[in-house]
C-alpha cells in the first residue's frame, strides 16, 4: 500500500477506539455479517486496520465553489444573532441541536402534524367568522409576534405542503424573516400568498412543540433579514 498521510485536525479521532473492528463486535453482530469468532485471524484484523487507515486519508468531495459562494453570500444578508450568553458554548466543540426544546416535550412528528391539520381546520373555521380586521389594532411591532387575532380563514387556507412563498421564495430571505419573527429554528410546513385585511401577505404554517397544534404566521411581503412585520401569529389546533 502507499504511504499514508495523517488525518487533519478536524478528523480528530485518529487514535480513538476502533468501533467498527470485527474484534469489537458481539457474536450476533459477527454472525450478521457472515463471520464467526474463528474467522478473526490476525491477518484479517490487520487487513481491516489497513483499510481503516486508508479511509482516514479519504476526503469528501467539496461542493462547487460557486455554490459555496452563494451560501456564504446568503449568510452575509442575515442579521447577526444575539447571544443569550456570550460564554456559550462552554466547552470546545459542544453544541446541542435540542437546546431550546423544553424538557419533557417531544418534537412534532408528521403523524401529529396530520392530526393538527384536522384540528386546525376545525378551530379556524369555528373561531373565525370572517369579520373584518383593522390592521392598526392587530399589527405587531416589527420583529415582535402579534397577538392572536381573527381573520376570514377556512380549512382550505391551510397551505400545509404548499410552497407558494411568493416574495419569500429565497431561502436566505425567508430564514431572515423567520428569525425576525421569532421563528428562527422552525421548518416551514407550508406557505401561501394571501390577502390579509386587504393587504398582500404571506401565510406560513409552522410546527409547534405542542402535539396537535400548528402555528400560522402571517407576514408582510417585505419581511426579511432587515425586519419583519408580523400581521398575525395564530396558534391553531388544540
Amino acid at each position, binding site marked *: 500500500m502507499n504511504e499514508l498521510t495523517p488525518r487533519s485536525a478536524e*478528523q480528530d479521532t485518529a487514535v480513538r477506539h476502533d468501533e467498527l473492528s470485527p474484534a469489537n463486535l458481539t457474536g450476533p453482530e459477527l454472525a450478521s455479517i457472515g463471520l464467526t469468532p474463528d474467522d478473526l485471524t490476525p491477518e*484479517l484484523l490487520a487487513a481491516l486496520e489497513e483499510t481503516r487507515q486508508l479511509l482516514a486519508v479519504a476526503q469528501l*468531495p467539496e461542493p462547487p465553489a460557486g455554490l459555496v459562494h452563494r*451560501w456564504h453570500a446568503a449568510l452575509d444578508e442575515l442579521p447577526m444573532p444575539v447571544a443569550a450568553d456570550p460564554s456559550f458554548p462552554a466547552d470546545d466543540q459542544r453544541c446541542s441541536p435540542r437546546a431550546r426544546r423544553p424538557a419533557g416535550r417531544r418534537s412534532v412528528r408528521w403523524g401529529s402534524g396530520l392530526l393538527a391539520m384536522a384540528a386546525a381546520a376545525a378551530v379556524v373555521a369555528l373561531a373565525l367568522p370572517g369579520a373584518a380586521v383593522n390592521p392598526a389594532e392587530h399589527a405587531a411591532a416589527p420583529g415582535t409576534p402579534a397577538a392572536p387575532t381573527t381573520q376570514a380563514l377556512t380549512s382550505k387556507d391551510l397551505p400545509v405542503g404548499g410552497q407558494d412563498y411568493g416574495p419569500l421564495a429565497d*431561502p436566505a430571505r425567508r430564514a431572515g424573516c423567520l428569525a425576525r419573527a421569532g421563528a428562527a429554528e422552525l421548518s416551514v410546513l407550508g406557505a401561501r400568498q394571501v390577502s390579509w385585511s386587504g393587504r398582500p401577505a404571506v401565510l406560513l404554517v409552522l410546527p409547534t412543540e405542542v402535539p396537535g397544534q400548528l402555528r400560522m404566521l402571517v407576514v408582510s411581503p417585505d419581511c426579511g433579514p432587515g425586519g419583519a412585520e408580523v400581521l398575525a401569529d395564530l396558534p391553531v389546533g388544540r
Partner: protein
Amino acid sequence: MTRTDAELLRAHLAGDRAAFHELTSRYQSLLWNFAQYWLRCREDAEEAVQDTLTRAHQAAASCRADDSIRAWLVQILKNICIDRLRHNRSRPAEPVPGEVLEQLPAPGNPIADHELRMDVRAALAELPEHQRMVLWLVEVHGFRVSEVAELLGIAVGTVKSRGTRGRIRMNQILSPGRPLQPATEER
C-alpha cells in the same frame, strides 16, 4: 492560530461575521455530501445546506455542552432533509448515484496522495450506499457509532455490521488477491 469550533461560534455570537464563514467552511463538504445522500437531488441538497447554514447562523446561541457542533449541524440538516422529503413525496427524485465520488480531489495534493485517494474513492464508490455512508461518517469524519446510529435512525448494531461489512468489501476491492471472508448480503 487555528480557532476551535467553539471559539468560532463564540466569535460569531460576538458579532464576528467572518467567524461563521470559517466554521461553515470546515463542515460544508460534510453537509453537502450528507444532503445529497438524504435527498438524492442536487437542487434540493443545495437548498437544504443553505437552510441548515441559515438556521445554524441564527440559532447559534442555543448551543449547550452536550453535543458536538459538527453533530449539531448534521442534526439540523437531517431535520431539514426530512421535512423536505415529506414535502416532496409527490415529486419523483432525481438520483445522483455515485456522482459525488467521481469528483477529483482538491488540487495541490502530492501525486501519491492523489492516486491513493482516487483508489479509496473508487473503492468507496463500489460499496452499497448504506455501507458507504457509515464508513464516511465513522472513518472519514470520526463520528462515533452511537452518533451515526442516531443520525441515520438505525440501531448501533446495524451501524457496526454495515461499517464492518463495508470495510471488508473495501479491502477486497483494494487488495483483490487477499483471501478474506466474503461478506454476506445486508441483513
